[in-house]
């Protein structure tokens, strides 16, 4: 194994085990040794995050693990990002995310944001309790591929419909993905969203598919 691969492997392990200090140390080593920063993000950090999300899928890891892993990853990415050669880096797509109006539960969507970032997407996270118009304004501003909507309450999920209605009128090309505790495939079909994701790793798959479908059109 080359020394570069060794650093990537250590970065992956440090992300998976949520060791923030070690991530910072390894990211600095990447810069010192003039290793490609983009490669370190993708093969070190993002790879670690995808292992974490696989383990989450299999119920071997849970949200607290993902959060410390994401924090460790973000601290490495912060150091590496300014050294990335922008033209060489591929950008798979542009995504807007947020929790719908009347709902402030954002743990799930924050995970989606971390995982999307790790997968290379450009993510504009609007936050929680977001009125429908804000999603549309942002979609126009960024000419976005996908809007990801989250809701945790049976009382707030109804607001997803309003966002979809506005989006169909004003930003026709943009795809809508929905997710969150009470939401289901049935509800997705009922309100005419383009995709439903049961959890954060599923959301990344769904976004990839939606972007591919959009580009194929």
């Amino acid at each position, binding site marked *: 194994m080359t020394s570069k691969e060794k650093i990537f492997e250590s970065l992956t392990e440090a992300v998976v085990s949520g060791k923030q200090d070690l991530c910072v140390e390894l990211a600095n080593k990447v810069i010192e040794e003039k290793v490609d920063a983009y490669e370190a993000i993708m093969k070190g950090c993002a790879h670690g995050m995808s292992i974490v999300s696989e383990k989450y899928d299999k119920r071997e890891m849970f949200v*607290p693990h993902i959060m410390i892993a994401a924090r460790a990853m973000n601290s490495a990415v912060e150091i590496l990002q300014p050294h990335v050669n922008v033209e060489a880096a591929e950008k798979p797509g542009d995504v807007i995310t947020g929790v719908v109006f009347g709902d402030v539960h954002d743990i799930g969507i924050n995970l989606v944001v971390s995982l999307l970032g790790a997968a290379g997407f450009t993510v504009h996270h609007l936050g929680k309790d977001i009125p429908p118009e804000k999603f549309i304004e942002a979609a126009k501003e960024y000419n976005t591929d996908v809007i990801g909507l989250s809701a945790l309450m049976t*009382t707030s999920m109804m607001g997803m419909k309003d966002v979809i209605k506005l989006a169909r009128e004003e930003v026709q090309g943009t795809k809508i993905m929905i997710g969150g505790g*009470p939401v289901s495939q049935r509800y997705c079909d009922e309100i005419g969203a383009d995709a439903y994701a049961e959890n954060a790793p599923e959301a990344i798959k769904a976004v990839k598919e939606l972007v591919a479908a959009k580009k194929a059109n």
Partner: protein
Amino acid sequence: MNSKERFLAALNKEEVDRVSVACPLQTATVEMMEEYGTAWPEAHSSAQNMAKLALAANRLGGIESVRVPFDLCVEAEALGSAIHGGNSDSQPSIKDPVLSDPEKFYSLEVPNPSEAGRMPVVLEAIKLVKEEDPTLPIIAGITGPFTLAGQIRGVEALLMDMFDNPSFFKALLSFTTEVLVSYGRALEKAGADAVVVIDPSAGSELLGSDFYQEAAYPPCSKLVHSLEKPAILHICGDSTPLLEMMADTGVAGVSLDHLVDIRKAKELVGDRVAIIGNINPPDTLFLGSPEDVRAESLECIARGVDILAPGCGIPPGTKLENIRAMAEAANAAVKE
């Protein structure tokens, strides 16, 4: 048997003449608000309106219990977290957790339930419902200690504290437990027949059973043991991996999300606690027809629920005829 006798017998796993139909979670709908001329958000902060709208679930929907309040922010608000009031079809929610600066923890005090925030409103509403109809069981909702800690600290910050500052985390959880014991006892004294502890942030998808056992179970068990009336525990999502620990907290019943398989739950804890649930609230109650609700209700009964109930709060847009279909199914089940 009247509704209260039936509900309490079912909760204690004693013999009943037919299945009890109740709702340990929020019951108000827009139709009830229109019919009774009392709507959210006003009904969250007026005891009379709260009592009236809570009774509507029985009078208009046929549910054989009364549940107060309609939201899960009473305790966090009494502790100083800023709240969004919500609208006629959306519940109040936490805007800013009071402990985003953890230093403030040391100046927080256990609130007096007869004075703090909307706590006295809920206590008064219980008394009013009891005066109006003593034959209905009153279920008072309180937040689980882990969830309350997340509401006043921020859930992400709380999960980080678990790793970064375990002694602060412990102190915070024993504080929220103390708050809830004091409020829970006040609810009982005001006339609540059962207390439902709602602990969504302790869900199995979020915490997993190891963290649940370590962080959320001990304070919840302490709270339940400090209450005198029968308690019910509701944890959102698929709580199957947590069920045995949930029963170990000392509750009389577990309220199950629609994702839980009732037969599996019966097998795991059915000999120890009452099984309450679990009609799918968004897909069946809200989007389905009365016939869908009836079919799913009969299925829940056939699978052996002790108390027929929705798997979570009733979505405010739910039609009254669907709620009535659930109540009618409980009656019909005897004859079939």
